[in-house]
């Protein structure tokens, strides 16, 4: 069995990150979950939040996801999210602007709320990565 987890973080239109990792932390609908080697096979729903992937060399990859899935099987972790972005790719100023705009809309639609959550998740991801 491999020494490490094989992780792939996939968005709808591209593979955001893939490689070997020692640990993955993600937030499912039931709470934060950490996955190490030898984890039981699991399929769970994620919420809009931050995913942390601890790389083999000690670096931590931080990404923001908006919902999606975490599937773990035989030390293979795949994180699927329609719009996943790495913290390093997030444009903070733009996201803050989006956040403010979406906050202004709140109360009127669910869509606005989703956008707020997404933007917040992205900003948290950036802050975590620092």
């Amino acid at each position, binding site marked *: 069995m491999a020494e490490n987890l094989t992780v792939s973080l996939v*968005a709808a239109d591209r*593979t955001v990150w893939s490689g070997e990792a020692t640990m993955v932390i993600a937030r499912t609908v039931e709470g934060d979950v950490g996955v190490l080697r030898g984890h039981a*096979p*699991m399929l769970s729903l994620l919420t809009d939040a931050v995913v942390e992937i601890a790389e083999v060399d000690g670096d931590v990859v931080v990404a923001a996801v908006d919902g999606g899935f975490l599937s773990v*099987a035989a030390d293979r972790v*795949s994180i699927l999210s329609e719009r996943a972005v790495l913290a390093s790719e997030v444009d903070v100023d733009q996201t803050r602007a989006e956040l403010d705009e979406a906050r202004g809309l709140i109360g009127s639609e669910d869509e606005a709320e989703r956008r707020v959550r997404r933007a917040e998740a992205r900003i948290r991801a950036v802050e975590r990565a620092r």
Partner: protein
Amino acid sequence: MAVSLREYRARIKSTESMKKITRAMELIAASRIIKAQQRAQAAAPYARELTRAVSAVATFSNVDHPLTREEENPKRAAVLIVTSDRGLAGAYSSSVLKEAERLAEKLRSEGKEIDTYICGRKGEAYFKFRQRPIVQAWTGFSDQPSYDVAAEVGAALIESFLKEQGEEGDVDEVHLVYTRFRSMLTQEPTAVRLLPLEVVEAEEGGSVERPDPSDVLPLYEFEPSAEAVLDGLLPQYVQSRVFFALLQAAASELAARQKAMKSATDNADELIKKYTRIANQARQAGITQEISEIVGGVNALADANSGSE
């Protein structure tokens, strides 16, 4: 000489400038196809993982989800037709529409009414011109669809599928007509049933691999529950299939356009050759005429001179 030399020259010139345009369009389409193919490839991992996950859930729980449930007595079917926004792509849009008509005919013979959903301006124009109703149309992205559009289309289709029978806008089946990109040379219009989902086949079309049958699916734990996971998974699965269809259609459209523009360029070449020959003939005829006129004039002068002496 029916048309003067000058007019032939003008025709050659205009054909030449047309050729320049078609040549440019051919080159643009060629470079965009590569991008479209890359996008389709980039989207493949997501579809693959999603398919794995869906088959995992389907295998380990008794699937009874609204999206997979067959209506006992289907009365209405929705057809989503993926066409292009712009023309000059040969028979691309018309062959999709033909395929859609064929499907509609088949559905009607099964006693189902048809709701039409359309992607692309060409399809919209086709239906508007014939004054046939369209339920919803999305336009303006046909050569580079984004996932957001696919999600929107998928959500609309799912919503109307989930309505109860008898409700306004309810459909019992959803079909998808798009052009599958086989290679640069062949693109074939394809009709597939999108909903109710048949659980679970790997995406057809070759760009997505089937999960290896030899690797036995592990016994998954589902959080919070198998139903909730399925609830979240299936709509995304539908959207990803719509996205897949849009990407395929985009690549097909560009390939069709490239082919059409290539033959237009070749035809322009032919035309220029033809006109050049006719123009040369006209020029020679003109010269011959002038010479015979001069000779005739000289002769007449000589005759007149000899007569007066």
